[in-house]
C-alpha cells in the first residue's frame, strides 16, 4: 500500500505485501487509529516562526519502518515528539495509546536510541547498560544488561569505559541500553552512523529479528540504501512534511518513475534529438551549446528505448546521464506531486 499524503481521495486500507513476510508494518496516514503502537495525529511542531514538523499524521504497526529524508527535514523532531522529549505545538502524539508528552510511563514500552553520542565517558559499557536496567526497574539488572550486551556483540569491550569506545561501539552501547527492557517499540535516530559494514549488517539482522517478534521499529536515515535494505514500510519526510508513506517498493517506483532529465552526448546530437522526439516516453529535447538535454516522462521507460533509438538512427552514444537524481530532488518531487 502506498499513499502520497494530502491527496483528495482517502488512501486504501493497508494490505500486507505478500512477498516480504509478516514484518511489513501497517502504515496509515488518514485518521490513524489511536490504539496503534505509534500515532502522530495532525502533529506540528514549530520553533518561533520556523516550522520543523508540519501537520503530520501517521500510525505504525509492528515491523520496521524507515523515516527517510534529507538532513534538516524534521526526522529527529518527529522522533523526539514520539519519545515525549518535545511538546507538539498542535495535534496529538501517542505511544501505545498514551500521550507521549509529560508521561514517563511510556518508557516502559519504548526504547530510544538518540543520534547524539553523549554518554557518561567514565562508565563502562556494562555499567551504562546496567544503569538503564536499574532505572527501568528490572528485577535483575546485571543479567538483563549482560543479555543486551551480548545481543549487540559488545561483550569484549563491555568492561572498558565508554570514553575509550569507537563511534560504532558507542552506538551499540546505546542500542543495548535502549533494548535492555525489551520494549515493544524502538525508535532509532540515524542508528547506522559510524558503524562499519559488518556491524551495520549485524545490526540490520538484529532489528529484523526484533521486528519478526512483533516489535514496532522506527528508524531515521538520510541514506536511501539503508532504508531500502532494512525497512518494509517507509515514511518520506521533506521540509517538515510527510511526502509519502507506505510500502518501500511502491515509493521506490514513484521515485523512479517521476519525470527525469538526461544529458546525452553522441556522435550526432541533432539527429538523435529528432529521433527521440518521436518517442512517447520523451516530451522535450533541448540542444544548446553542444549539449543535448532530453526530458522524459519516466526514468525506466526512457532507459528501455535509448539504446534502440540510437541504433536505429545510426548514432553512437558516448554518455547518457540523469541530471537531477539527487535525493533532494526526489523528495521535492514527492511533495509537489500532491
Amino acid at each position, binding site marked *: 500500500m502506498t499513499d502520497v499524503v494530502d491527496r483528495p481521495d482517502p488512501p486504501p486500507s493497508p494490505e500486507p505485501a505478500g512477498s516480504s513476510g509478516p514484518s511489513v508494518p501497517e502504515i496509515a496516514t488518514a485518521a490513524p487509529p489511536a490504539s496503534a503502537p505509534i500515532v502522530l495525529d495532525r502533529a506540528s511542531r514549530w520553533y518561533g516562526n520556523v516550522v520543523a514538523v508540519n501537520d503530520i499524521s501517521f500510525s505504525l504497526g509492528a515491523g520496521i519502518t524507515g523515516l527517510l529524508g534529507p538532513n534538516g527535514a524534521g526526522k529527529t523532531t518527529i522522533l523526539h515528539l514520539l519519545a515525549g*522529549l518535545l511538546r507538539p505545538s498542535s495535534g496529538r502524539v501517542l505511544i501505545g495509546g498514551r500521550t507521549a508528552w509529560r508521561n514517563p510511563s511510556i518508557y516502559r514500552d519504548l526504547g*530510544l536510541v538518540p543520534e547524539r553520542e553523549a554518554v557518561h565517558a567514565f562508565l563502562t559499557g556494562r555499567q551504562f547498560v546496567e544503569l538503564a536496567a*536499574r532505572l527501568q526497574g528490572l528485577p535483575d539488572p546485571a543479567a538483563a544488561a549482560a543479555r543486551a550486551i551480548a545481543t549487540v556483540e559488545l561483550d569484549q569491550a563491555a568492561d572498558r569505559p565508554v570514553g575509550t569506545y569507537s563511534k560504532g561501539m558507542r552506538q551499540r552501547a546505546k542500542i543495548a541500553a535502549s533494548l535492555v527492557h525489551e520494549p515493544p517499540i524502538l525508535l532509532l535516530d540515524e542508528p547506522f552512523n559510524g558503524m562499519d559494514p559488518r556491524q551495520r549488517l549485524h545490526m540490520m539482522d538484529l532489528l529484523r529479528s526484533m521486528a519478526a517478534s512483533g516489535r514496532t521499529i522506527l528508524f531515521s536515515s538520510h541514506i536511501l540504501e539503508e532504508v531500502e535494505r532494512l525497512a518494509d514500510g517507509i515514511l518520506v519526510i521533506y521540509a517538515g512534511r510527510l511526502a509519502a508513506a507506505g510500502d518501500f517498493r511502491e515509493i521506490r517506483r514513484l521515485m523512479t518513475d517521476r519525470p527525469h532529465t538526461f544529458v546525452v552526448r553522441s556522435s550526432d546530437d541533432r539527429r538523435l534529438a529528432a529521433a527521440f522526439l518521436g518517442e512517447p516516453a520523451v516530451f522535450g529535447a533541448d540542444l544548446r551549446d553542444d549539449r543535448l538535454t532530453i526530458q522524459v516522462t519516466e526514468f525506466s521507460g526512457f532507459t528501455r528505448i535509448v539504446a534502440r533509438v540510437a541504433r536505429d538512427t545510426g548514432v553512437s552514444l558516448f554518455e547518457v546521464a540523469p541530471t537531477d537524481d539527487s535525493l533532494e530532488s526526489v523528495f521535492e518531487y514527492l511533495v509537489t506531486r500532491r
Partner: protein
Amino acid sequence: MNASGAVAAIANVTFRALLGRRRTLLMLLVAGLPVLLGLIVRADQERPRALVGALEGLIITSVLPLVSLIFGTAALGSELDDGTAVHILTKPIPRWTIVVPKLLVAAGLTAVMLVPSTILSGVLIGGTGSRQIGITFAFAIAALVGSFVYAAIFVALSAATSRGLVIGLGYSLIWEGILAGALPGTQLFSVREYLRGIVAAIGPKDTLVSVVGAQGFLLAAVAFVVVTTFACIRLARFEIRAAD
C-alpha cells in the same frame, strides 16, 4: 520502579560525573582560598569583628555561591545540554527521582568543601577563643545550610534554561552580592540574608545584625522546598534542546 533504587543509581552517576579531575581540583582551590588567606593573616584574637567580616565576605558572599554554582549547574544543566540526560529522562521514573539526587549530590559536595574551609579559615583568622569559635561554628552551619539552598537554586536554573551558568553567576553577583539587602524588603528574598540570620541566631551575641534573624532557618527551608519543587516541575516539562 522502586524510587529509592532510581535515586541511588542517579546519585551514584552524578557523584562520579561531578568528581571529574579538573573540576574537583578547581573547586578545591576555590574552597581553599579562605584557608590560604587565613594562613597569611593568622590569628588575631583581639579582633572578632575582622573574623565576622572575613567569613561573611569570603564564605557566604563569594566562595559558597561560586562552588554551588559550578556543582549545581554541572549536576543537571551540562547533562541536559550535551544530551547525556536523555538516557536518564527516557526512563519510567518520576522526575523528582532525577532532580533530588542530583541536587543532594551537588549540595553535599559543596558542603564537604565549604564547611571544613569555613572552620579552618575561621580558626586561622580568629583563633580558638570561645567567642571566635562560636562565630566560626555559626558560619559553618550557615555554609552547610547555604550549600543546599544554593544547589537547589542552581539545579532549578539548569532545568529552566540552557543558560543556567551565566544567569546563576549574574544572580550571585548582582542580586545576592549587591542588590539584596541594600533595599528594604529584599532581605526576604536573599539567601545571603537567610544565612546571616542563621549566624545571628546561633552565633555569640551581637555577632552581626540581621533583619530575618532565626527565621533564616525557616526561610532557607521554604526556599529549598519551593525551588526544588519548581525544578521538578520544570524537568517534567523539559524539551530537548537539540533538534535537526
